[in-house]
């Protein structure tokens, strides 16, 4: 075996080439880590947002968008009384009639941004138990409560919506009365107001949906049967988890675009890195031939060249991981129905390391083979 120091010292033969290789691998690993973390974050938030115990009753034909759905107001009461298996506490059944309303909100400082406002009653907390008030109180008339990540979705500074601050919705001034968390779900980036206020502001006399919380997810057929039997209400029953699963598939092309963009930029960096290694190894054909003449096998020399490449690529991986931890971890990313937090968890870090190793291995092998391929007598005469 050649000494490890041979590989490390070779790295510093050309500082420019070393920087190119490390820079290229940093870029590729960072892109892969970012793409994985973003996809993972989006998947997590969409899968965690839908509980298999919850059933959403929407207007028939509006299965793709709750916002467009129209459900008669009386459907909530009828469903609460008729659907078996609905969760119940202190004699109150977990049924929440809701209006999902998309409109512009005006913030102090003349900031105007589109937001999803959910009109709810306190029963909403029974069907969405992941929602926890962290500050203030549940909104009353003329008030709203704001999700922990709403600032990111609304594109306003994080501290711009304190309790008592005011915002405007369709000329109606609303006061921020509370703040809530719903970890890992899209609810965290929503604004909740009272059902009565939203009914008036949206000028509608129907609900967007009725959410039922079942004791057992296996009772879904009961809710489905109810929706099918009550033809007068024109309802369709969906598992909440299926609804968000469908949304997740809807965002499939977006995730594919993230991968394609990362792939294209990464491919450029990989080709640049391989080209750098070709140049670096090509200048050492005679040296490799000399080592073979001394008695080192091609396998040993290939291993040493791969060591060099791995060292550079793993240095790039380390830098990329550092950048990801400092600049990506904990960042919230908005998307059309909410926001999610990017997490550089052990899985993402492992993906980065595997990417770095693959880059080091696969990037080095073609130039190394080319460097070791010439016949010894020819290679020894190369300059």
């Amino acid at each position, binding site marked *: 075996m050649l000494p490890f120091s*041979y590989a490390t010292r070779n790295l510093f033969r050309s500082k420019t080439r070393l920087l190119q290789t490390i820079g290229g691998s940093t870029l590729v690993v960072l892109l892969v880590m970012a793409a994985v973390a973003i996809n993972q974050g989006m998947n997590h938030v969409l899968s965690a947002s839908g509980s298999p115990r919850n059933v959403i009753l929407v207007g028939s034909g509006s299965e793709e968008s709750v916002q467009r759905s129209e459900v008669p107001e009386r459907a909530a009461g009828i469903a609460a009384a008729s659907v078996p298996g609905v969760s119940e506490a202190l004699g109150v059944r977990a049924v929440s009639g809701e209006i999902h309303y998309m409109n512009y909100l005006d913030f102090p400082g003349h900031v105007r941004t589109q937001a999803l406002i959910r009109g709810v009653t306190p029963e909403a907390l029974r069907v969405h138990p992941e929602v926890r008030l962290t500050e203030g109180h549940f909104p009353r008339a003329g008030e709203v409560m704001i999700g922990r990540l709403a600032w990111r979705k609304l594109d306003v500074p994080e501290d711009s919506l304190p309790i008592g601050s005011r915002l405007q919705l369709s000329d109606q001034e609303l006061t921020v009365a509370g703040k809530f968390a719903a970890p890992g779900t899209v609810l965290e980036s929503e604004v909740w107001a009272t059902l009565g206020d939203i009914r008036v502001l949206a000028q509608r006399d129907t609900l967007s949906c009725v959410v039922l919380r079942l004791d057992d997810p296996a009772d879904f057929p009961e809710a489905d049967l109810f929706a099918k039997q009550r033809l007068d209400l024109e309802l369709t029953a969906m598992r909440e988890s299926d609804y968000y699963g469908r949304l997740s598939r809807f965002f499939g092309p977006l995730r594919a675009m993230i991968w394609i963009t990362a792939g294209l930029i990464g491919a450029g960096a990989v080709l640049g890195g391989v080209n750098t290694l070709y140049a670096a190894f090509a200048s050492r054909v005679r040296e490799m031939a*000399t080592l073979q003449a001394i008695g080192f096998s091609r396998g040993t020399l290939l291993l040493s060249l791969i060591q060099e490449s791995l060292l550079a690529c793993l240095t790039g991986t380390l830098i990329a991981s550092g950048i990801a931890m400092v600049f990506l971890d904990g960042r919230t990313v908005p998307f059309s129905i909410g926001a999610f937090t990017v997490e550089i968890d052990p899985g993402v870090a492992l993906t980065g390391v595997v990417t770095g190793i693959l880059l080091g291995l696969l990037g080095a092998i073609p130039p190394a083979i080319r460097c070791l391929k010439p016949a*010894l007598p020819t290679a020894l005469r190369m300059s």
Partner: protein
Amino acid sequence: MSEWMIQCRGLSKSYRKGATVVTPLEALDLKVPKGEFLALMGPSGSGKTTLLNLLSGIDSPTQGSLVIAGQEIAELSRRQLTAWRARHVGYIFQLYHLVPVLTAFENVELPLLLSEMSKKERHDRVATALELVGLGDRIHHTPTELSGGQEQRVAIARAIVADPPLLVADEPTGDLDRDSATRILDLLRGLTRDYGKTIVMVTHDAKAAAAADRTLHLEKGQLLENPCADF
């Protein structure tokens, strides 16, 4: 044991270059006794370096028999030749071919990394080899910090450190000034005289050839003299 270090019979080497077949060496017979310092001379393209490459196991003949230190090497595979070179041959190049990122000590140590020697044993042998070539005080210098003559002496130390019976040298003084060349030739002579090494040296320089025990001339892939007739 045979008294011959090298025995070639009908040794030929040819290769394709485009549509034509080039034969730099044809049906060559040669015997070199152990401990001889042999110089090979001849014009460019006469087959000197090809013969040197065959003798050192860097290349394989197309035809003929080649026995070195009692072993037929013409039939060895590439992998077997690599292992054989590590034990039997020390190669000295015209342009030294030292590894630039390694110190003189580390360059000389390279052939020993292929053996089972302990670190201390390696250290002692490298120190001895560098002392022998007069560079005991330059062990931590990298090739860029050495003169041409010093670099060639490091290369010689590298060639002898594993104690191979055969040394091959391709124009070892071709890139050196006269004083340095003389020192290198003295060193090579001493290796034959004091340590019984067999040396085959290719050179264009008649003065360098004069340092050898015997000089053979090659032309168009053939030896001008009949070397086997002497033995």
